[in-house]
């Protein structure tokens, strides 16, 4: 039962202080994901059950869905999974700088996915598919919304992990700074999201990237643009560490557990993409 790893070599996946050699956090995460399978199983069942037979006010789903957008966000989520895997990989090698970049990339892709979802929901609502317009709306928004909440929690977790990589090694006070860091992130994310969606909207109203689009964009979203720009600068400033940090290989298991969660959210989307979106087209 007890596995004693060869002395010397750092063993990322096995923790000698536990009976099985699997780190507690990782085991916890796997058990949680087993539970989450049932969670999404119940949600997906609900959606499918209501697709088995006609329900009142059935919407014209093909006229509402946009396969391009969904494929794009699916692709984005897959790529974020890649970045997440790389973040774990670099962290295990002790490359804090690379880990941070990968984390930021994952955050960014996660946010793009969320933006797509916000856009999609908005778009669908305009086309008349709302949470309570019909059963399809109810099950669709509940299922994809729950998934979106999972992604959002994942993004929050990633941000917290990213901030944590700056915890100074000498134990000097840091909570306040970390909290400010978090707030700045929140501001950038909200403002950035608004600016991004505003940009897309401008592109659409102006039918393409032209002067009109740009002026529309600045006209409507100036505050958001400014706030996110300032915030970004602040983030860059906060993201330069001068002191030695505590974060290192020992934290690989934290990043890895978070990664498990992130990948799981990804595979749930793989199922949703097929079952909720693609199957409608057949």
């Amino acid at each position, binding site marked *: 039962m007890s*596995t004693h*790893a060869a002395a010397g*070599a*750092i*063993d*990322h*996946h*096995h923790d000698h202080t536990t009976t*099985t*050699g*699997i780190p507690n956090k*990782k*085991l916890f995460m*796997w*058990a949680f*994901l*087993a*539970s*989450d*399978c*049932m969670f*999404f*199983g*119940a949600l*997906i*069942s609900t959606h*499918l*059950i209501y697709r*088995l*037979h*006609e*329900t*009142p006010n059935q919407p014209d789903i093909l006229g509402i869905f946009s*396969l391009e957008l969904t*494929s794009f966000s*699916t*692709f984005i989520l*897959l790529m974020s*999974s*890649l970045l997440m*895997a*790389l973040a*774990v*990989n670099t962290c*295990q*090698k002790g490359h804090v700088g690379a880990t941070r970049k990968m984390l930021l990339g994952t955050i960014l892709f996660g946010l793009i996915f969320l933006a797509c979802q916000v856009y999609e929901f908005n778009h669908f609502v305009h086309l008349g598919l709302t949470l309570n317009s019909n059963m399809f709306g109810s099950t669709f928004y509940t299922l994809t919304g729950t998934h979106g909440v999972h992604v959002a929690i994942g993004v929050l977790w990633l941000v917290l992990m990213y901030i944590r990589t700056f915890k100074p090694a000498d134990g000097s006070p840091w909570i306040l700074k970390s909290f400010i860091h978090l707030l700045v992130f929140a501001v950038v994310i909200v403002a950035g999201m608004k600016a991004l969606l505003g940009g897309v909207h401008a592109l659409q109203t102006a039918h393409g990237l032209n002067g009109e689009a740009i002026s529309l964009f600045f006209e409507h979203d100036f505050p958001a643009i400014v706030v996110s720009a300032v915030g970004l600068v602040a983030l860059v400033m906060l993201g330069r560490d001068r002191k030695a940090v505590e974060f290192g290989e020992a934290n690989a298991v934290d990043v890895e557990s978070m*990664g498990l969660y992130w*990948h*799981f959210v*990804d*595979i749930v989307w*793989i*199922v949703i*993409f*097929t*079952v909720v979106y*693609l*199957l409608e*087209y*057949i």
Partner: protein
Amino acid sequence: MSATTHSADSGHGHAEASKFHIFVQLAMILAVITGVEIVLIYIPLVKWFIVTSLVILSLVKFMLVIFIFMHLKWDKLFCTILFFIGLVLAGGTVAALMALFAAHDSIPLKAQEIYAERAAAAQ
């Protein structure tokens, strides 16, 4: 627990580098499969074939992510067992629910009304 999972690739720079490539390649494969899926739905083939292929393809993606991105392939067998307990039960439950609700006795009255109205309108 299996001792063989104590694979040589952990902790050695060389092996880690190769994992980097595995990850990137996997991402490509996943993207390609997604592309195939999207194309598939437009191909005029019999329905059951497309549905089966879609299910299989997403299953393949699913398994690839779990075993490679989520590292299950290189981890202790116990993690796999743990996760699959949940996965299998969830899959079984979904299947059982679908079977129950697809049964003739479960056709909702509302759906019957709608079908009847539609049949009446068609005449």
